[in-house]
């Protein structure tokens, strides 16, 4: 069984408007690479220059924030769901 990745509206321009994409199990880093292979440019949206998860992108594995799991090394297994969620850049509403 593959892993389902939920793509938020702002990233769907990379995925031909697909809202759910299926990938092979692996670490989040490996899944990001799979996504970027299929949808070039997506990786640069998800990762910061230093290669870690972008501060304004939250990645959830089965609804748990991966920041509190093993970050990019978090293992994603068959049947799991990965959700990507962007934060709008900037820390102030005004």
């Amino acid at each position: 069984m593959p892993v389902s990745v939920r793509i938020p509206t702002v990233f769907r321009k990379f995925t031909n408007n697909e809202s759910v994409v299926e990938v092979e199990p692996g670490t989040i880093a490996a899944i990001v690479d799979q996504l970027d292979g299929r949808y070039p440019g997506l990786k640069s949206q998800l990762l910061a220059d230093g290669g870690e998860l972008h501060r304004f992108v939250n990645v959830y594995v089965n609804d748990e924030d991966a920041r509190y799991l093993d970050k990019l090394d978090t293992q994603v297994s068959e049947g799991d769901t990965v959700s990507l969620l962007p934060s709008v850049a900037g820390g102030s509403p005004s």
Partner: protein
Amino acid sequence: MRYASILDAIGNTPLVEVPRLSPSEDVQLWVKLEGQNPTGSAKDRIALALVEAGEASGEMTPDKTLLEPTSGNTGIALAMVCATKGYRFTAVMPDNASAERVQMLRAFGADIIFSPGEKGSNGAVAMAQEIVAEEPGYYMPFQYGNQANADAHYKGTAREIVEDLADGNLRAFVAGLGTGGTLMGCGRRLREHDPSIKIVAAEPKLGETVYGLRSLEDGYVPPLFDPDAIDGKVFVGARESILWTRRLLEREGIFAGISAGAVIWVAQRVAERVAREGGGDVVCLLADGGWKYLSTEAWTQDIDTAEAQVEETLWW
């Protein structure tokens, strides 16, 4: 129990065991019923702390009107505190807040300025900041960035939990993420008591229509909230929240607000982990009672209708 004023009746809420909701006999699951505060939510604690901090600093004076962005509970609590102290109060609130919240604010004598519902709580925050910047005569305590918010939970909520579980073995604390005040204040106190206690946040998963609630995903990180000060964060949708809010009522007779279901749902996962590590106590903070959500029909409709109605309302 006798109190000299309603303000003295804030806090010291019951900590109630809910064994029928614990996934393991090795885990004692407890709920702290913040709905038992005078206006029915944990926000009574911070409202009193915010007003008193403003008085102590000299920023809040009788000639000023207190103004605060709120999706409801904080506004109602501030309205109560201001009524007892003789201050005028204006709430800036999204226009899709539940009908009960609007009625309660008006009943307490508050003025309401509505912000566009589709901009969520962030829209209310932005509008309140504009008003205070342009018009004199207001004092805005700003719960999202005021340390008195977290301190109220440090001095009150968490102290009560530690005292009530003095003979226990607290392993984890679960609360909803809004301003971050509850998680920061309780987390700090509980970790001082025992650094191995896990602090876990339940975070609202929003419908497409209401996207602006006070979660980090809006691009607004409340200044109070430090992501490194918690041990986990779990995303919960309206459906799971409603289902577990109903279970809380059906199995344990506790009528709590919809975010309580989200917290209990997250606590199931947390409790399973605690059970694997030898068991102990897990405390869930239930921020409010169910009364203010009756108009969403969360308990009376079939789950699909209830989910749709809750998603159109500010339920966090």
